[in-house]
């Protein structure tokens, strides 16, 4: 019962913020809504017992990535979005896509017998020591490849954002 109540609170917060992201016209309001989505997702992870993932979600997503977004919005001085005549048809397509996509997803998910399992509060604890042991033993090669990916991303960002010579 407690699990259901907590899930409804955090899930409702998450959905409300996600819909607010769509309704806002100024990008800074959308960015703040996205921070709320990520924070409530971290709490939902904590409900399932995924401690490490929850903290990493807060630090990387809600912390680092969103700070980057807010900085870019500030740097580019982004204002309210303007709508050109060419973009009038997209809300209709978007509404149709959302309704049909969610309906199909919910139908598949609720009818598949593999997804009828039940989850209790904190069922699979994922503390940092166990996740770390798995990461550095079984997934060592992907982890090292990831560091190369980060290095390439840093160099790419520097090259792309550099001001031209002229």
């Amino acid at each position, binding site marked *: 019962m407690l*699990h*259901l109540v907590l899930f409804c609170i955090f*899930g409702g917060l*998450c*959905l409300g913020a*996600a819909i607010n*992201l769509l309704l806002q016209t100024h*990008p800074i309001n959308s960015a703040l809504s*996205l921070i709320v989505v*990520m924070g409530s*997702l971290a709490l939902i*992870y904590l409900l*399932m017992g*995924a401690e*490490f*993932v929850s903290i990493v979600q807060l630090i*990387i*997503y809600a912390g*680092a*990535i969103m700070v*980057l*977004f807010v900085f*870019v919005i500030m*740097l580019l001085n*982004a204002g309210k*979005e*303007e*709508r*050109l005549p060419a*973009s009038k048809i*997209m809300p209709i397509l*978007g*509404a149709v*896509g*959302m309704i049909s996509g*969610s309906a199909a*997803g*919910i139908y598949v*998910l*609720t009818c598949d017998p593999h997804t*009828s399992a*039940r*989850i*209790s*509060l904190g*069922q*699979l604890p*994922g503390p940092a020591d166990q996740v770390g042991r*798995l*990461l550095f033993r079984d*997934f060592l090669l992907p982890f090292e490849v*990831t560091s190369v*990916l*980060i290095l*390439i*991303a840093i160099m790419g*960002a520097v090259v*792309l*954002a550099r*001001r031209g010579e002229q």
Partner: protein
Amino acid sequence: MIPLNYYLVLSAILFACGVVGFLIKRNIITIFMSIELMLNAVNLSFVAFATARGVLSGHIFVFFVMVVAAAEAAVGLAIIISVFRTRETLNVDRVNLLKL
């Protein structure tokens, strides 16, 4: 004790919100934020399935998804800055030429 379905349905609706944002938003930064929302929705279903099956590998995969998202955010925002510098606009409808 709640069914796994609840988490998956929440994840599906969040993903749909991301897709809709990608389609209806005209600001390139907001479009990019919708992509992040879709990645978050997928992470939620990873953790839910990992919990239901009792394997920790799902948590590791979420970690890798986050690393890729961080790299993508860094490169994507650099591209946005570069586009803004040449076009002086953030509206994707005004970025309609392959070359300036």
